[in-house]
């Protein structure tokens, strides 16, 4: 009997615990209810009188009128509580940053910063959202999923006139950054829950890692640069059979290196030679392409089969790294640094600690009549669209927007926000902005790096367009106080990467899906399909490369594509491309 009572008590206890877990949703609902007054606060706080007249600061008024038509110190005396994630800088007191000191001086708005370590950030933001104990704003990456799951906790900035009134500087920049303008920030319900920061990184990130061939190896085996798949095969055979790396051991060469577990070095990138290319969507992204506005399947094509057969031939003859499917990124890196690979993928050779001139972009045609296409797209969104998110509970929404707008009120301020104090990493010379190399010689900055000097928040507090930071084709830097055109330096990683991207970007795809937030339920449908589809395709690819592809295995694969929802997946992307959700 006692045991029965005990069992009943335990069951009740477990039920109570389970119910406590479910209580989370109620917290969110409560927050939604309490968010209403904040909405009113923002609407009623629209500027009808000039506080600048009361404060009598002519200089500040002038500065403000140049930017958003509001006096800079309109919200003077306001205190904001902002959470930020610590970047690469060491000092956690963000009020010491020049850009924020200037902002406080000009706007009279004081920010109480809570700066969390990167590790604590995600944990604490989730707890803050779950407990409803929110600051005025988060000025670091809250994350798309956090906003998506707690939409009602973030202030809807799509209210009519709100952005136009308070952040005109942002609205001016947005068309230069997003092809679809403000729609890039809208959720499917039309709301805007966060503002963007960062910059589109042209000439750098659009392409994925690039196929590179070791020129020294080519010279040692006395062969020309291959231009077709057959020629590449011959070259790889020569790498295998001869002492291509010149270390005296003719057996340690691995002609073609890849690491499936490390993003960007996957074997699927070689599908490019067979006319199949990824945008930037991970390995599964190889199995669709957008051609003339139509999302087209690639996994069921003769090109795919031809690629599998070619790769199997390479694997069977010892031309591919046999550890490629299982090795880690570190192991791949070690092989690259030990000069064991003749062909592999790189961001740029210098990024792998290699000599730029020893490697060359490898571009071959896999099939006659099929034009190779390079992974990557000509527009790639590298901005951070969820890095300035205002709490729905905040009573200082206009002040927050005004402060954010002030940070972007001139190109110089944006540069300070992006690269820190003028005269260190950047400087102005006769009205033009340049990167400054002189800081590297200044003993004051000994031990510092570009990243510790800027941090990441400084960079991310404003949205920059290409026009704002067009100091760079990256070739003119201030050296000894004077802008100097730098000659191409093969040891400079940035220059090397930019050179490669500029040269080979025309080989990438023109069409892409516009940047936008998507309905969580609709995204869920896609991810549900991918849960089974991705491993099915990956397994087939790995098996086919290791063991070969037969008519029977190919037919089974085609049937599996249908069974596993591949064509629904393609349709999903078509709808996304068409803007149906």
């Amino acid at each position: 009997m006692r045991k029965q009572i005990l069992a009943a008590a335990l069951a009740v206890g477990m039920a109570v615990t389970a119910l406590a877990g479910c209580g989370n949703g109620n917290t969110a609902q409560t927050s939604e209810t309490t968010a209403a007054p904040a909405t009113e606060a923002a609407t009623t706080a629209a500027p009808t009188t000039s506080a600048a007249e009361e404060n009598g600061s002519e200089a500040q008024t002038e500065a403000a009128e140049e930017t958003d038509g509001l006096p800079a110190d309109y919200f003077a005396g306001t205190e904001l509580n902002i959470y930020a994630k610590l970047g690469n800088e060491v000092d956690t007191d963000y009020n010491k940053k020049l850009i924020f000191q200037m902002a406080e001086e000009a706007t009279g708005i004081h920010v109480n910063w809570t700066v969390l370590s990167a590790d604590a950030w995600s944990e604490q933001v989730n707890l803050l959202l779950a407990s409803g104990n929110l600051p005025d704003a988060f000025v670091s990456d809250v994350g798309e999923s956090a906003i998506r799951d707690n939409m009602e906790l973030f202030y809807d900035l799509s209210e009519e006139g709100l952005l136009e009134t308070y952040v005109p500087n942002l609205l001016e920049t947005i068309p230069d950054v997003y092809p679809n303008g403000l729609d890039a920030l809208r959720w499917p319900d039309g709301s805007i829950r966060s503002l963007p920061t960062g910059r589109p990184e042209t000439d750098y990130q659009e392409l994925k890692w690039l196929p590179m061939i070791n020129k020294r190896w080519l010279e040692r085996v006395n062969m020309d640069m291959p231009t077709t798949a057959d020629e590449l095969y011959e070259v790889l055979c020569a790498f295998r059979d001869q002492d291509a790396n010149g270390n005296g051991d003719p057996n340690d060469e691995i002609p073609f290196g890849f690491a499936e577990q490390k993003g960007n070095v996957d074997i699927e990138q070689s599908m490019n030679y067979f006319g199949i290319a990824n945008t930037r969507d991970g390995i599964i992204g190889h199995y669709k392409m957008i051609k003339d506005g139509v999302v087209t399947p690639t996994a069921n094509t003769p090109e795919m089969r031809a690629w599998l057969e070619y790769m199997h031939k390479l694997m069977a003859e010892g031309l591919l790294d046999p550890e490629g499917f299982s090795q880690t990124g570190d192991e791949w890196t070690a092989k690259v640094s030990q000069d064991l690979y003749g062909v592999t993928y790189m961001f740029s050779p210098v990024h792998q600690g290699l000599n730029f001139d020893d490697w060359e972009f490898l571009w071959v045609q896999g099939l006659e009549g099929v034009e190779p296409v390079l992974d990557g797209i000509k527009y790639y969104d590298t901005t951070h669209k969820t890095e300035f998110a205002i709490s729905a509970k905040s009573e200082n929404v206009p002040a927050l927007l005004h402060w954010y707008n002030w940070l972007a009120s001139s190109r110089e301020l944006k540069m300070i926000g992006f690269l820190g104090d003028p005269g260190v990493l950047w400087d102005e010379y006769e009205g033009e902005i340049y990167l400054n190399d002189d800081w590297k010689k200044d003993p004051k900055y000994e031990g510092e790096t570009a990243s510790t000097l800027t941090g990441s928040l400084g960079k991310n507090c404003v949205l920059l367009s290409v026009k704002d930071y067009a100091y760079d084709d990256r070739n003119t830097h201030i050296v000894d106080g004077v802008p100097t055109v730098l000659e191409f330096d093969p040891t400079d990683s940035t220059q090397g990467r930019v050179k490669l991207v500029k040269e080979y970007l025309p080989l990438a795809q023109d069409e892409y899906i516009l940047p936008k937030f998507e309905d969580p339920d609709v995204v869920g449908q896609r991810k549900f399909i991918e849960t089974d589809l991705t491993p099915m395709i990956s397994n087939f690819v790995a098996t086919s490369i290791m063991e070969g592809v037969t008519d029977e295995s190919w037919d089974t694969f085609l049937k599996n594509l249908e069974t596993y929802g591949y064509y629904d997946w393609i349709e999903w992307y078509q709808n996304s491309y068409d803007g149906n959700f």
Partner: protein
Amino acid sequence: MQSMIRTQKPANKIRQSWDNRLFDALANTFLILLTIITIYPLWFILVASFTDYKLINAGTLLLYPRGFQTAGYELVFEDWRVWTGYANTLFYTIAGTFFGAMVTILAGYAFSRKDLPGSGILMKLFIFTMYFGGGLIPTYIMINKLGLLDTRLLMILQGSISVHNIIVVRSFMKTNIPDELLDAATIDGCGNGTFFVSIVMPLSKAILAVMVLYIAVSHWNSYFNALIYLTDMHKYPLQVFLREILLKTVQNADVVENMEEVLEMQQMAATIRYSMIVVSTAPILCAYPFVQKYFVKGVMIGSVKG
């Protein structure tokens, strides 16, 4: 013949049969292998922390440091956060261990006494908390309402008391402090306080040492509470900072102007990782031998007869 055998073998030595000798040999070999399996990972961490990162990334078998370097340690120690973290961790460990050990011993002793009113219900309530908790979010809200968020006091209080430890102490006390001892002391005019301080504590050195070690290790390793409840980085313990430094070394390279440094750091991640393990575990490893003799005794008594 027999006398010859006697002269060859000592009289008191029992001759081992061949199967016994085989068993000994196998057992010894097995134990030696087990020792190597246990010690090698520790030895590897120490060796790898002084080894060139390229060799570590290549997965080379290491028996001694190759390509000797101390870059990992330099990187860890040149960061002010490591020193701040060390100071904080020492403070949380010492204060938390003092508080935790005091409460655990007192509670364990109280529960060991038969004359504690309501001890049965109290113990059941304590045990209930071992199986059921409010969950992270309610705990966070409660701590916020208590005004303990972002306080050093929270880091001392939280995690100091474990019901498991209290049960171990109770079992120890029940076994080692007989009721007759209390009766005798009471007859001699000894009160509860004096009995606890003058008689119970000296007889409980072993379990006290075990509790101190348990609680100190738990505080030393404590990482999650700081991550959740602290916002001021100057209050972070060492473990959070070490993790932070490691994350920075393997982060995505998004600072365009300085790729070589980021790449170098990423490749050094393994060396830094091993250096951190050594830095963070060295103090506990140094302290362990001093409490080891009590530890074995205390754990055995506390658990076996619990």
